[in-house]
């Protein structure tokens, strides 16, 4: 492979995607230009530089002068009152921890906040638009509501202006006091809701196996009754689906606006790395799922060609439009000038910091505990970051230099992390992604050829 790929639309036109600048042009035109697609030399130079002792640590240290620390994630508990079947911590995933009774102490939380704000204020001097942002994670964060309250109170006392607070919750633990607290502090709350009662209760269950839809729906009503504006503006839903999902049902549920269901903010497919999750479905179920997606896609494309984009449903927006828009708005005509992470969608460790219940710092709330990048007592550890990134280069990035679509990559540490380091699982994960991107680009360009305007496609 090399840093480009070609594709042919349904109308028989050939195009070339050039990964070096991110552009797509008709093959005929690009034949007249000489483009050097192989980058092995540059990659080796970069690789040798990064492997030099101290290079990464120095680079990151310099980077922290004006960057990083945009968000603090506090994993305040590893316990949850539910046992959702597909949860990262359900035991289904070889590379992740499982639920435990570990929880964060206020002392640890305070140290994390102090460390974060100390760096944040430095960063804010370079970018005065930034506001501190704190997100609580679990387990179920509302199991530790008292701790959340104490942390919020402490932060408001020591920081002079607005702080953005948020968390994702299963939505089962809410009462009047909690709701009023969330409203008062303008919390942005994301509720996990997988669709209608059937679909939601299929996977999102209590320890005794009972579904949770009714309870969440009741709680939505409570919030809306107390403050409808808050409910509409600050509450969102995150939905997950898999091969067993009735995709038409999911579409119907999120297509019609419902008074007591918050607006959708994301639809995620349940992660298939480091798990046998999808082996539970038969070949017939898989085919049925693929067919449903195909039908929905054709409906969406038909809609795009014939209707006003502003009439689009929430489902179509998050299931089709946004992923396609990400392809369409890939970075173009710019240099990928980050020498320590030239490939993959990984951020620089420390761009956000996630603190575990024990006070160890990790680069993201979604990674496991294999590589900490410091702790709340001693701060960020540059040697740990170097160690982690060298492992990442050796296990992952080494194979990226001739990837044909680095600008479309959405994979990061969270996809590749194992209990020992980093790896690809399944080992053809990149090839599968490439195939999918190529298919989507081919479909999209075919539609554009048929007269779909860029403006029509992008609101």
């Amino acid at each position, binding site marked *: 492979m090399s840093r480009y790929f070609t594709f042919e639309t349904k109308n028989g036109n050939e195009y070339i995607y050039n990964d070096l600048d991110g552009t797509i042009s008709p093959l005929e035109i690009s034949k007249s230009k000489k483009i050097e697609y192989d980058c092995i030399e540059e990659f080796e130079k970069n690789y040798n530089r990064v492997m030099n002792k101290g290079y990464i640590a120095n680079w990151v240290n310099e980077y922290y002068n004006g960057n990083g620390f945009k968000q603090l994630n506090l994993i305040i508990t590893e316990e949850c009152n539910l046992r959702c079947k597909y949860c990262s911590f359900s035991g289904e995933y070889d590379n992740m921890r499982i639920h435990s009774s570990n929880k964060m102490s206020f002392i640890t939380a305070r140290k994390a906040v102090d460390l974060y704000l100390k760096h944040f204020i430095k960063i804010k001097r370079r970018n005065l*638009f930034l506001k501190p942002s704190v997100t609580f994670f679990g387990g179920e964060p509302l199991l530790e509501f008292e701790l959340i309250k104490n942390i919020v109170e402490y932060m408001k006392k020591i920081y002079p202006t607005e702080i953005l607070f948020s968390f994702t919750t299963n939505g089962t633990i809410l009462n009047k006091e909690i709701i009023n607290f969330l409203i008062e502090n303008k919390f942005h709350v994301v509720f996990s809701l997988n669709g209608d009662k059937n679909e939601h209760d299929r996977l999102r269950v209590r320890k005794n196996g009972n579904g949770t839809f009714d309870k969440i729906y009741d709680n939505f009503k409570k919030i809306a009754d107390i403050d409808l504006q808050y409910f509409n503006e600050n509450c969102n839903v995150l939905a997950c689906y898999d091969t067993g999902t009735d995709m038409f049902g999911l579409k119907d549920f999120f297509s019609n606006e419902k008074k007591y269901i918050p607006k959708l903010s994301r639809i995620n497919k349940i992660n298939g790395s480091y798990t046998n999750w999808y082996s539970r479905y038969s070949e017939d179920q898989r085919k049925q799922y693929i067919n449903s997606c195909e039908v929905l896609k054709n409906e969406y494309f038909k809609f795009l060609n014939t209707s006003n984009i502003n009439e689009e449903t929430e489902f179509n927006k998050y299931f089709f439009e946004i992923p396609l828009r990400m392809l369409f708005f890939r970075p173009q005509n710019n240099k990928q000038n980050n020498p320590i992470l030239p490939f993959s969608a990984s951020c620089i460790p420390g761009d956000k910091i996630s603190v575990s219940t024990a006070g160890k710092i990790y680069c993201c709330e979604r990674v496991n505990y294999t590589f900490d990048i410091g702790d709340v007592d001693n701060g960020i550890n540059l040697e740990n970051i170097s160690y982690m990134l060298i492992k990442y280069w050796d296990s992952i990035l080494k194979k990226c230099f001739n990837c044909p679509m680095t600008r479309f990559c959405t994979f990061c540490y969270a996809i590749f992390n194992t209990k020992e380091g980093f790896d690809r699982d399944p080992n053809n994960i990149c090839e599968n992604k490439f195939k999918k991107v190529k298919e989507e680009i081919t479909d999209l360009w075919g539609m554009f050829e048929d007269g779909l305007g*860029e403006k029509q496609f992008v609101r």
Partner: protein
Amino acid sequence: MDNKYLSLFNNCVFVNETRNSSLYDFKDGSVYKLDMLNSEVIMLTKKGYSVLEISKKIGMGLNYIMNILNNYVENELGFFSENKLFIEEYKIGNILLNKDISFNPVIYRCFIEISYACGLNCDFCDDEKINQCYLCHKQGEKKINTNGIKKFINFIVNTNCLSLVFHGGDPLLNPELLKEMIKFSRNKGFNGKIFVITNGKNIYKIYDYLEEYHVYYIIPYIDKNYMKSELLSVDEIIDLKNKYNDTIKITKLFTPDSFKLKEEKEIYFDYFSLKNPEIVYDLLKDNKGLGIPKVDANRFYHNKYRHPCLYGNLAIDLLGNIYPCPHMKNDNLGNIDENVIYDIFENKLVEYWNLSLSKLQNCSDCSLKYACTDCRAYEVNKHKEISKKIICPLK
């Protein structure tokens, strides 16, 4: 031949609005205003119609349409193909990320007023002017809030600020104060550009005194045939430029009459060079000499999401009041002594920086809005409405 399709190259962006249509060519920054027929034809090519289909749809002969389209090919704006192709418009960087104002914002110009006094008495001093930010303005004397201004400088020099512009009055009338402020900025670690707006009369006296701080001087110039002025003459400015080279910058003050003076070659208009690499006079065939700058992709996308001038501006007056622009005195964002800097950036400034011309009455339906420069201060002072545009050089 009948079923040929014209595609524009990806560096050519067609903007079609209800009032007019334009073609932006990022290859050399040209902007072409299209007449109705050209606009219609290009719109149909963008929709994927062949030459023959366009000819039928518009009801004009095939040869006539071919002639129109050939013009684009000859000027290297497009090419013919046998099939309908999709050519993606040129984009730069990460468009979705760039729309977020908190992503890597830059303060291009921070205006610091340190004087109201001036030794000259120009007739037009009190007149409202377009782009007055690079001009001096004499006012009654008031006591300067030195500590407040230093507090502001101390704050701003650690941000992504590219230039400080000291202005007045004439700051050179009080060289000690000017030196104190400049020295303070440099000592606090500011290594961007420092400009001083002055009428230029005292540069000879002060140049050596400030040389170690690498200061640039911006001098207003006006053609004395059109306005009575005590400002330096062309010859005097050229003498200064010869002596001090690149440290002397010039602002050309336009009057309605002096718009006609584009043949005046001896002065390079540094005002524009501070913001735009080049100023072009004959870009639009029917709008010669109106000062539309060249528009590369960066500028195009900047103007799409931001105000062409206000983005990256911040100003503080002699008393410590902070404004989005030194001449938008009705838009006081707060006083430095009230610890308002965080509040200004987190809540107030975004409204001004993100005021793209698409949000302005009279501009939203104009396809040239991504090429236009706009002086909000002049407009607001004239008609008090931030979202209205009356002065349009393109009308």
